[in-house]
């Protein structure tokens, strides 16, 4: 490819002169030439650092192509969307290759037409492939865009997965400032929690916080900016006292109930609008204590919708009561009753039968509930609890099951393939179900599903419908949560091998929380709507949206 670019060089110059005589599209010619040169530069660069290019492609391409893009400031040409560079070059090169062998002196107009067509196709292709940075880079390059250029559709990445971009961090800090709740005294902003420790490069786009530096350090002690119930909740999230998708949602709704109870509408404001604005800084605060889960996001959407649907002629007390009742009914329907329905479904449809050996991973409140209910209905089965470091949540699941009287075995995840021949079914809990059928759950779940698939053991995922979210993700890198890396440090027999890990420049500790399991490994999803295959998740989402 590089060679053909070189060959094209002299041919190009002829065409440029011809184009000059034509008096048309001069800038586009130059642009194409520039693009080719850039591509050659990049090729050479990529050949040099082959090993370093393990990083996220999306991140690297815009960054590196941004560098050469900003280099020639003297060029009067417009810098198009940078990722268009590699995309357009391969398309334009064959086009030019096709045109070069053609008769040079004649056919000038036809040639130019072909080139123009090729260029337009290239732009269309680049529009489709461009995911690029947010409007920042496109914005700086927009002013001189030729009129025939369509603006490329800029897809915005959420901020929480662009932590290594300093511009995004600045934007986030500004947003937190703007979200301050105006009190009579100085309006204090929501503090920004700073990242801790060296982040493994694959995950450098995510936040990594330390539990020893809580966000409350930067808040005043009788917290006036943020409601005390929310501060308490944020602390409980960051310490892990409230952990697990259902628990977090219930605790969040409980805190919101207290906020609503203590809320008074200020003068000249409407409850429906002002209360939503009041909730925004609280949500940013909670997000910084610990990134919100999908279930929490859905709960917040529901509450915001309910608040904004309150008619303006409604009295404050009435409105507050209505909201409190809405919250109660949401929890009742979506969490408690859904759990009961799922358990009933699982037990009656013989998903737990006598003589079963059921494998569970970690501590999922729903799966524990199902197993306890099944045991109450006198099904004879035994359970194998698989656990993993550093959270060791399986111990808590083990305690709850043994307390009921279920006979359990406890293994670590490294022993899964040894224990699987004994297992008849695998029950997994989910943190969220994504729109493309992938299951997002505690890290290690996809491993278990994979091994179970290899052994032909059916894998059943239990999930309430309020955890379905319309995000799409196919790998665990794009969006995840990094927990405190110091959790991985363990002291045995008085020695702590990882003690000074921050001082080792080549050592990084990674404590992932979630991973995604592809739908091919999951045989069935049990929801309160019934037993559905993994691929029916978008259908459920669509039906839910229609309902609302």
């Amino acid at each position: 490819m590089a060679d053909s670019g070189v060959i094209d060089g002299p041919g190009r110059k002829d065409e440029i002169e011809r184009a000059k005589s034509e008096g048309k599209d001069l800038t586009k010619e130059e642009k194409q030439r520039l693009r080719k040169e850039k591509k050659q530069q990049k090729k050479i660069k990529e050949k040099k650092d082959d090993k370093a290019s393990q990083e996220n492609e999306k991140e690297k391409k815009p960054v590196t192509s941004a560098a050469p893009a900003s280099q020639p400031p003297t060029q009067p040409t417009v810098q198009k969307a940078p990722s268009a560079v590699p995309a357009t070059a391969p398309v334009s090169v064959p086009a030019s290759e096709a045109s070069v062998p053609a008769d040079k002196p004649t056919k000038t107009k036809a040639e130019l037409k072909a080139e123009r067509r090729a260029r337009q196709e290239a732009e269309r292709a680049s529009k489709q492939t461009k995911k690029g940075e947010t409007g920042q880079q496109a914005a700086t390059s927009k002013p001189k865009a030729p009129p025939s250029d369509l603006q490329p559709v800029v897809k915005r990445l959420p901020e929480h997965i662009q932590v290594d971009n300093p511009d995004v961090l600045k934007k986030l800090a500004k947003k937190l400032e703007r979200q301050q709740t105006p009190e009579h005294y100085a309006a204090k902003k929501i503090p920004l929690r700073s990242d801790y420790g060296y982040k493994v490069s694959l995950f450098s786009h995510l936040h990594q916080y330390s539990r020893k530096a809580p966000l409350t350090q930067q808040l005043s002690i009788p917290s006036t900016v943020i409601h005390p119930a929310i501060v308490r909740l944020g602390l409980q999230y960051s310490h892990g006292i409230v952990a697990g998708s259902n628990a977090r949602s219930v605790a969040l709704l409980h805190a919101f109930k207290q906020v609503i109870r203590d809320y008074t509408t200020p003068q000249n404001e409407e409850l429906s609008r002002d209360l939503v604005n009041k909730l925004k800084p609280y949500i940013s605060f909670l997000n910084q204590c610990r990134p919100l889960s999908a279930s929490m996001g859905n709960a917040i959407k529901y509450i915001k919708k309910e608040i904004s649907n309150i008619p303006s002629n409604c009295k404050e007390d009435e409105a507050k009561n209505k909201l409190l009742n809405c919250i109660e009914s949401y929890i009742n329907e979506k969490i408690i009753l859904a759990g009961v329905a799922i358990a009933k479904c699982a037990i009656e449809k013989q998903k737990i039968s006598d003589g079963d050996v059921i494998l569970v991973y970690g501590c999922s409140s729903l799966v524990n509930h199902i197993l306890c209910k099944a045991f109450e209905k006198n099904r004879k089965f035994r359970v194998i609890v698989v656990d993993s470091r550093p959270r060791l949540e399986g111990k808590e699941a083990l305690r709850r099951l043994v307390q009921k009287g279920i006979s359990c075995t406890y293994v670590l995840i490294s022993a899964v393939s040894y224990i699987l021949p004994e297992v008849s079914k695998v029950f997994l809990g989910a943190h969220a179900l994504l729109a493309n059928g992938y299951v997002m759950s505690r890290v290690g779940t996809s491993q278990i599903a994979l091994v179970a698939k290899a052994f032909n053991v059916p894998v059943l995922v239990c999930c309430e419908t309020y955890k379905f979210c319309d995000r799409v993700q196919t790998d665990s890198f794009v969006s995840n949560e990094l927990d405190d890396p110091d959790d991985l440090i363990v002291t045995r027999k008085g020695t702590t091998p990882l003690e000074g890990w921050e001082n080792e420049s080549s050592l990084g500790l990674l404590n992932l929380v979630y991973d995604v399991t592809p739908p091919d490994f999951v045989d069935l999803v049990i929801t309160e709507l019934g037993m559905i295959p993994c691929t029916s998740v978008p259908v459920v989402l669509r039906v839910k949206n229609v309902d609302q």
Partner: protein
Amino acid sequence: MELQAVLMAAGGGSRMTDLTYNTPKAMLPVGNKPLMWYPLNLLEKVGFEEVIVITTKEVQKAMSTDLKIKDVKMKLDVVSIQEDGDMGTADALRHIQPKIKTDILVLSCDLITDVALHEVVDLFRAHNATMAMLMSKAHEFTETVPGQKGKKKTAEQRDFVGVDKSGKRLLFMANEADLEDGLSIRKSIMRKHPRMLIKTGLVDAHLYCLKKAVVDFLTENKSISSIRGELVPYLVRKQFSKTVNSQKLKDDTDDQTQEKNDGPLLISSRDEPLLQLAQERSCWNDHRGDMSEAYHGGKLRCYVHIMDQGLCCRVNTLAAYIEVNRLAPKLFEEPSVHPSADISERCQMGSDSIIGAVCHIADKTSIKRSTIGNFTTVKEKVKVTNSIIMHGVTIEEGCNIQGSVICSNAVIGRGADLKYCLVGNGQHIEPEGKSKTNILSNGQ
């Protein structure tokens, strides 16, 4: 509102009567600031806007004239109580019960610390605790105390503090004076927390976060009069006592009388079922290894934050007072010499000395490691080392003062030589007087 601050400033300083003879303990100068300014500053830095100050009329009068206290930007709600000394700290809380609307943070006026308060309050918030307190590792006092002949034998009663293996949950607290024939620990505690660390070298900072329910409980139980002496050990014991409805509660006989009054302590908030549900669904437990749920199902929890670094000192003895005068100025970045002080050029001043406002320091004086209060006059050829000189003192020429404490408005005659002495309020030391390791004050 989340927390209300209460500052207890009515204490009499019973362990340093020589110092507090004329000046109430809360207004003793430390680094030229009144003692109660330090906890007020701590509260202000952290973001409190209002403080309820419980004090005597004398202190209230002194507060209204003091400049530093006027500098405090918070709103001080001063409640004055009788001085006769019958009112304990818990009685004072009972007295202001109508003002208390939320959980409280109780401080003592003699606490000087640079602790990050959020550590204590976070324990209180995160675990929904009934009480959270602050303690610190005790440091030996290195300075020689005036009036003390020879090394002091620590006849102080030790405090035994038992914490769980995370170091945060308070399991046991008793003073040596209450343990006649040895330390006994209930089996119920050992069953729930098999690993307990018992520490004795800790200083109680008298900083407590208490739930509002505790104040309500105090109004019903009028027999408790001191927070530290009675309320705190009671709450710590109550964590593990069987519930009110249980039949077999014969462990502590003194618990029986107060069983019927426990109602307020165990009241549940609204939405308790939701909190319960959240806790059930959460996969967290504070302990591993037995069959019980988080916190062993106990509703009453006491937590302690133990500081191992930083300054935390309670100024209730003379030795502590001297120590704190050395350390407290380092907490702040203020200039050691007050701008209005008039110091002559031929005075040798060490860098760790503090000179107060409107002082006159004459030539050929040497001031090392000392604190000199406001309105003090130091004449020529005076040597002041390791001493604390309070306000309005006059030191005539040629004096040599070492390791001493000179209280307000004293006059030291010419050529006097004082080593490790304490000169009381308004005392006059005759010229050429020599005194060593003596306490010269009205009280003696």
